[in-house]
């Protein structure tokens, strides 16, 4: 793949000035890539981009403060970086961004479902991309799948496929999939009656095992070891194994991300029991975009909940 | 708002004492493109005789008017009479109270749906049609006519029922008369009481109260007192003889604003219907014409003077230019 080689050259070129460059390399299975920390030319050889480049490398930034690092980023990854920069959580000068046009990434749940009855995902030996399809090297022969059928949901509403803020951009820019996010998924969810929505969350959250993988995968969860989930001062949550505390943790997470979440979907992807966590975060994002016209990770202004206007044209206060 | 249509409620006086208001209103509305549909089988609005003794009965009478309108597909009602307007409005207002509405509907035996409205002819002409449109229609401007507008007590009050113009110092008729070309004198008693229907039980009240209005109008030098209410008109016009016996020493005609509109629009005598007034308008109109001549003459004089001056300036300019040229040559 020519573009892959171009990215590799860009990494190799930048590497001398950087402590490392984070990208993607081979994972435990052929369908799963893993984050790759590249420090020398041998590491760079292991780099792969493309449909399997799922992980958001921005996740590692806050813990790598102090040394200049390089990141290979998709459009959505770059938004996370942008938001971290806007909040002064990382310094833009300490980051070297290598962008490339992203044409979607895989959703393993969908892939697993697509392979149902044909083979286990772990049995796939290799994958190659052919335009709008992926071709899998499976035990029973090649399996061809349309990318759009197995791509992550977020890719279908991608407004920013290219890392616009990249220091180096490799390849031709991809066209946005949509011009604006209409939050049709939320609207569909809200077709359910209020009581049904409640019941939905009660049922979904009952599966939660409080592993906090959602939190740990979130590039904007910067509290890390100081998360209120495990704090007594303040004591927002008990350790009781009840739906209420589990749901409340998700509300804390979503509230802390209000006006900040870039919708990268890592929380939902990381959830081992498949709770649709991004829905909660997108409900906040819809509010913030509607009220303040703010798109997290794109706008360079102060995040809207950390500032105010004397007159708020979009807020219609209720008359009493 | 041309081409608008209203249900028309003439009120009892429209068929009797204020025929001239009725006729001129219809004519003027037609000229301004307002369609009037008569409310079929209308009845008394419930004013004075009913509302002084039984508010429910009074509202029921009004409610029946709206219900009759509704049957003919009419929701927006227009009436020339401020007293009818007041009572119709009050009925709608009071019927927002469910208990009251139930009592009314027990009498009318039919429920009144929401969404009815009623406005005065004056309000519709000034606010909906607009004075620009009125000005366009003027064929015979009332230049030289000195008028005082008299609104009466009900046209703008109580403020929260009538919701029209300033309650104490209304301007709509002033502006309307100006649009017709008339001169409008500031009239402090424009919303004073004329005696209203009190003239029946307390005979003396009308000559005293109406007299005060006419007296001030005369002192200000008005040719006419222009009115918008049939009862006011009757008190000021029909009873002027009575008032004169108590010291008023002149006569003054009291037309409706619609009559002056009809005249200014160049409509016929039948439609302006000045003949139906008690006090003759002819002297006032001849005053107007004389003054109009004077105004015209004065304007001509001023124009001539201005032209003369301009010519002189031009002459001087030419001369000085000539001088300058001459100097240059020298």
């Amino acid at each position, binding site marked *: 793949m020519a573009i892959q080689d171009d990215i590799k050259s860009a990494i190799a070129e930048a590497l001398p000035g950087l402590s490392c460059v984070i990208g993607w390399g081979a994972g435990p299975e052929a369908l799963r890539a893993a984050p790759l920390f590249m420090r020398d030319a041998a590491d760079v050889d292991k780099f792969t981009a493309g449909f399997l480049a799922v992980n958001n490398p921005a996740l590692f930034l806050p813990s790598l403060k102090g040394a200049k690092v390089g990141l290979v980023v998709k459009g959505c990854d770059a938004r996370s970086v942008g938001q971290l920069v806007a*909040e*002064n*959580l990382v310094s833009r000068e300490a980051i070297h961004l290598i962008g490339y046009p992203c044409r979607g990434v895989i959703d393993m749940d969908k892939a697993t479902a697509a392979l149902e009855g044909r083979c286990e995902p772990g049995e796939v030996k290799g994958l190659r991309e052919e335009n709008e399809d992926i071709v899998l090297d499976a035990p029973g022969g090649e399996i061809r799948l349309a990318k759009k059928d197995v791509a992550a949901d977020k890719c279908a509403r991608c407004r920013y496929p290219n890392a616009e803020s990249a220091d180096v951009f490799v390849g031709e820019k991809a066209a946005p999939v949509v011009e604006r996010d209409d939050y049709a998924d939320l609207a569909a969810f809200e077709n359910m009656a209020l009581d049904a929505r409640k019941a939905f969350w009660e049922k979904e959250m009952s599966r939660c095992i409080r592993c906090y993988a959602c939190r740990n995968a979130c590039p904007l969860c*910067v*509290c*890390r070891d*100081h*998360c*209120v989930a495990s*704090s007594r*001062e*303040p*004591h*927002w949550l008990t350790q009781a194994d009840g739906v*209420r505390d589990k749901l409340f943790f998700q509300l804390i997470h979503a509230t*802390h991300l209000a006006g900040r979440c870039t919708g990268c979907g890592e929380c939902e992807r990381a959830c081992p029991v498949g709770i649709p966590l991004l829905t909660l975060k997108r409900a906040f994002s819809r509010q913030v975009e509607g009220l303040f016209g703010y798109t997290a990770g794109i706008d360079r202004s*102060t995040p809207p909940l*950390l*500032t105010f206007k004397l007159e708020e044209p979009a807020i219609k206060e209720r008359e009493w | 708002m041309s081409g608008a249509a209203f249900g028309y409620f003439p009120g009892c006086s429209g068929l009797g004492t204020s025929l001239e208001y009725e006729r001129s209103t219809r004519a003027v509305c037609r000229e301004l493109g307002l369609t009037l549909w008569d409310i079929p089988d209308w009845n008394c609005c419930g004013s004075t005789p009913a509302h002084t003794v039984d508010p429910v009965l009074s509202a029921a009478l009004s409610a029946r008017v709206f219900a009759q309108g509704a049957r003919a597909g009419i929701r927006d009602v227009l009436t020339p009479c401020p007293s009818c307007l007041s009572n119709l409005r009050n009925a709608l207002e009071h019927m927002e109270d469910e208990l009251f509405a139930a009592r009314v509907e027990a009498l009318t035996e039919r429920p009144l749906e929401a969404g009815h409205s009623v406005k005065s002819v004056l309000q519709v002409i000034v606010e909906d049609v607009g004075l620009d449109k009125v000005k366009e229609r003027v064929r015979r401007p009332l230049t030289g006519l000195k008028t005082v507008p008299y609104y009466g007590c009900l046209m703008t009050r109580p403020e929260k029922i009538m919701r029209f113009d*300033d*309650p*104490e*110092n209304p301007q709509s008729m002033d502006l309307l008369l100006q649009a017709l070309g008339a001169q409008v004198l*500031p009239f*402090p*008693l424009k919303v*004073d009481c004329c005696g209203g229907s009190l003239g029946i039980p307390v005979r003396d009240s009308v000559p005293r109260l109406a007299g005060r209005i006419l007296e*001030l109008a005369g*002192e200000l030098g008005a040719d006419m007192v222009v009115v918008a209410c049939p009862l006011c008109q009757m008190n000021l016009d029909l009873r002027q003889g009575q008032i004169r016996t108590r010291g008023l020493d002149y006569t003054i005609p009291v037309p409706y604003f619609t009559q002056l509109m009809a005249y200014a629009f160049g409509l016929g005598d039948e439609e302006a219907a000045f003949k139906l007034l008690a006090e003759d308008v002819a002297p006032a109109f001849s005053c107007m014409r004389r003054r109009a001549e004077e105004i015209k003459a004065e304007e001509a004089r001023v124009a001539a003077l201005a032209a003369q001056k301009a010519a002189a300036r031009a002459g001087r300019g030419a001369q000085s230019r000539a001088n300058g040229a001459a100097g240059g040559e020298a």
Partner: protein
Amino acid sequence: MRIGVFICHCGSNIAGTVDCAAVASKARAYPDVAYSTDIMYACAEPGQDAIIAAIKEHLLTGVVVASCTPRMHEPTFRKTVERAGLNRYMFEMANIREHVSWIGKDIEANTNKAAELVRMAVSKLRLNRELKPKSFPVTKRLLVVGGGVAGIQAALDAADAGLEVIMVEKQPTIGGKMAKLDKTFPTVDCSSCILGPRMVDVAQHPNITLYAYSEVDSISGYVGNFDVKIRKKASYVDWSKCTGCGLCTEKCPSKKSYDRFNEGVGPTTAIIIPFPQAIPKKASIEREYCRQFNTGKCGVCAKVCPTGAIDYGMQDEFIDAKVGGIVAATGYDLMDWTVYQEYGGGRYPDVVTSLQYERMLSASGPTGGHIKRPSDGEEPKDVVFIQCVGSRDVSVGRPYCSGFCCMYTAKQAILTKDHIPDSRSYVFYMDIRSPGKGYDEFTRRVQEEYQARYIRGRVSMVYPKGKKLIVRGADTLMGAQVEIEADLVVLAVGAEAAEGAPHLAEKLRISYDSYGFFMEGHPKLRPVETNTAGVFLAGACQGLKDIPSSVAQGSAAAAKALALLSRDMLDSDPQIASVNLNRCVGCRKCIEVCPFKAIQEIDLRGQPKAEVIETVCQGCGLCNATCPQGAIQLSHFTDNQLLAEVEALCRF
């Protein structure tokens, strides 16, 4: 923890609709409650003594009093528990009077609600920590905003006591409304004779710095250390050179300016000295009337000024000042009475306001003290006074009584008779409100000695007829309509808070009511204090009042300011934010939102952390609500304390 609970009866104020004994008995079951009782008056001496005794007897470590609002007696009870040896913050109040007994009569519901409020207070108290105040130095300087009689009194009293005072006055002269008055009631002594010397005192006092024709531009800081920015408006006359000779005002060719000081009674020049006794006696140019500014051609004043003081290029100037306390004394203005179309709405020249009439009566006024009709300059014989024009009138949105109009109208009726002995005065009134020393006697004298005809009723209409004004009103005592042919009509126009008062309130961070009057700390017990520490009120800005009351409040405000600023150090409120450095990740969000710049970033072993500047923090808790990991907590209102209150109320 051993908690004592005291349920106050407040006489029958609480006990009338709350079963206090039942609440006390329920409270015994709450966690950590070691003692619970009901008590007749908790705030009275026996009540406080009983609390102290119980603390000692039952070894209590925390106290809950359920009584009135903490805005009233929290300081009282904090002192009580302190006297018993507890830290003053080991105390909570449950408001079972204003929020329970006074707003409903259902004893069952009230008792249940009171018990729940006590439970909330106990839940919170269990998490209270001992807090100790820090002290900080005080700037011993007072700012007085407004140079009317109340402000003058406050400034002089404070300055006489040795305090430095800065006075800021919006107009080019101090003196306020009182300087416009001819005489004062009920003594009918000359207003400028009693005010004038006090104005001079302000100008000459070594401790007072006067900024006239100036406004407060911004205020930051807090009690003891306010930073004030004063805008000195451009007067286009260099006051350091102006001697107040008045030559410029004589020669100024624009003679059609609105005369602000004289309420528009007669015109004035574009360059003015408001009145002969003005302090400071300096000229200023009203730009909108000045030919130099409007046409670029004139310059007469600059030519004639013997000291070369005129400066057409002058700009607004800003002065920064540090003060420890602030007295607001911004007074009142008359409402816009032209909404009264029935009185002509301003169309009839011979209908004037009471303040315009004062200027006509004044010997130094534009008519030289001769009462003249504005229309034709003739002397009126029949003068009608209409009271409550914009007072006690819901229809124009002014339901309150302006308070002083009855009295000044009586005074004006007396002065009318003095000026024109063959005149007749008529006063239309609603009620005569004259509660004051010698006041009612005064209103009686005007009727009996001066034959003013008092007519109890409202005026429905004023209209011109020939040279006369017809005043038509009701005489409700006679049950008849009256009509009076007047030569002049004087309206006792209702007063409202001075223009711009709400803006100043926002700068001072004090509350104001819907008419712009500033809110006092407590209507009975803290009438000149506000809920913002270090800000005091004097005069009509707090609510309409006459001269003696304004002067009394001026002195009272000065006394309060002196009590505050007599101390070298002030205790800071320890209910402020603090950072748990272990939990802080240095994200700077708290620094971003803090309205007081009270949080700074520090470096802790190479890690950025937040730190609260204790003397600057005001304790709003915005940072606490902003910090995602709860690393910054507002003492006494921590997350855990508020969560405890919420949980006390939750069903699950």
